């Protein structure tokens, strides 16, 4: 598979065109904004956490295929999980994007998120794939500070 096809896998393109959990909840409980000033990507991640469990998670915004798909698949993967497990998944996801560890040897909590392994060959795009996740962490920390990739 070419690097380009590995980056733009069907699943990623499909999520970028039809993002899941793409909505603002009513009422808004907890949220954070993320921006990538390099490319102008902007998104907001909304959270509803009860007893350290992510009861609801959604997002809105505009961005490239990688950042939109990553946000969409993040919400799918993390909904219903304890915050601690969400953090562990982010750590694994980050490792998938930046290290050369073979994805199959890692303890697989990533599920479908492993389609992002192609991003590794495009260091400039790692920030696109992690924008939603960093924004989520800001919301979880309760600081509500806007997150910037720069």
């Amino acid at each position, binding site marked *: 598979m*070419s*690097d*380009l*096809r590995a*980056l*733009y896998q069907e699943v990623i*393109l499909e999520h970028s*065109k039809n993002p899941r959990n793409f909505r603002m909840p009513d009422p808004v409980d907890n949220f954070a904004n993320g921006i990538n000033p*390099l*490319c*102008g*990507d*902007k998104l907001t991640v909304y959270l509803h956490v009860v007893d350290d469990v992510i009861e609801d998670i959604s997002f809105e915004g*505009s*961005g*490239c*295929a*990688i950042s939109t798909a990553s946000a969409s698949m993040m919400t799918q993967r993390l909904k219903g999980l304890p915050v601690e497990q969400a953090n562990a998944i982010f750590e694994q996801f980050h490792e998938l994007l930046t290290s050369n560890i073979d994805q199959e040897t890692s303890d697989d909590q990533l599920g479908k998120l492993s389609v992002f392994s192609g991003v590794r060959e*495009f260091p*400039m*795009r790692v920030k*696109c794939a992690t924008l939603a996740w960093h924004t989520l962490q800001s919301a979880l920390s309760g600081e509500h500070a806007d997150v910037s990739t720069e």
Partner: protein
Amino acid sequence: MTTPHPQALISESLRADFPILEQKMHDKPLVYLDSAASAQKPQVVIDSLSGFYETGYANIHRGVYKLSQDATEAFEHARNTVRDFIGAAEARELIFTRGTTEAINLVAQTYGRSALGPGDEILITEMEHHSNIVPWQILCEQTGAKLVVGLMDDTGTLLLENFAELINARTKLVAVSHVSNALGTINPVREIIELAHAQNIPVLLDGAQAAPHMPIDVQALDVDFYTFSGHKVYGPTGIGVLYGKAALLEAMPPYQGGGDMILSVTFEKTEYNEIPHKFEAGTPNIAGVIGLGAALEYLQGIGMDRIAAHEAALLSYATEKLEEIPQVTIIGTAKEKAGVISFAVEGIHPHDLGTIFDMDGVAIRAGHHCAQPVMEHFGVPATARASFGLYNNFEDVDMLVQTIQHAMEVFS
């Protein structure tokens, strides 16, 4: 791609002057379409830098030894080359800066801080690069002055009537880009200068995107300040030029204090040097200046008229080809344009385009082009931008079109 290419206006052999273009990117020939961000360097510029360091280097304006005198001469020779290049009356009207950005900041912090007060106005346009917005905003914070913005229409053309109405007794400076970096629009700078001068208001032109692409004559324009960057005119990075009319420069306070900008220093009083040295504190970017001189001589050897005509032919060919693709929207369709073509492809974010282009060996810019208000006007977060230099040819445009088609396949 079945139609024959128009006649090339610049000899294909000039392309061989740029060693970087022989390179492959991801096993594909490099197609460099990002000259508006920075231009590649011809061998003569590279040689002038290494030659200066190898055989001619010393500090300037101070040594009594031959090497220093020769370096000073080479440095001041380059100032004269710049004078020729933009048609200034005197070499002392040219100040070397780090680039356009520093040149604009210099004017803001010297002319601006001494001439502006609360309620005064600086008039710019909606299509400015951040470097012709933010220095004025800082000045406004310092002085209580107000930034006023002339609007453009949806083709990216300045609304000149609106602009004229915004000029009033409180306007103390007009600062406008000669050519828009994000849209390619060539602004009606003659008319703007006439309007401003009718009310005795000085005009600064940000020439970063104009100087590489067309003949510039600051005396014919009667412009008060003109700025441009070395790296965009095929010269080194970290060097740029501020042109100012001598009378204005002489009346302005210095920008930075230090060596070279003084005539005499005591702890009681310091006497400043004459222009241009008053504005060139410290050891300057000597090699950068010499490299810039080499770049401008190279351009003069080709002829700016020829370069402008060549790029106009590329732009019109590219515009025609992109208009044939229904999914492509060109952003910035002013009648008067330089070799910049910003565009959007339906359903594909510019950042994704940039990656796919890169894999095909095509270097374009994807982003907001340091002109976020322009993006806001057109309601897009970013655009893809192809821009032309003297080394580009019609095959490069064909590759651009092929790559857009490739991106549409990947995303289909």
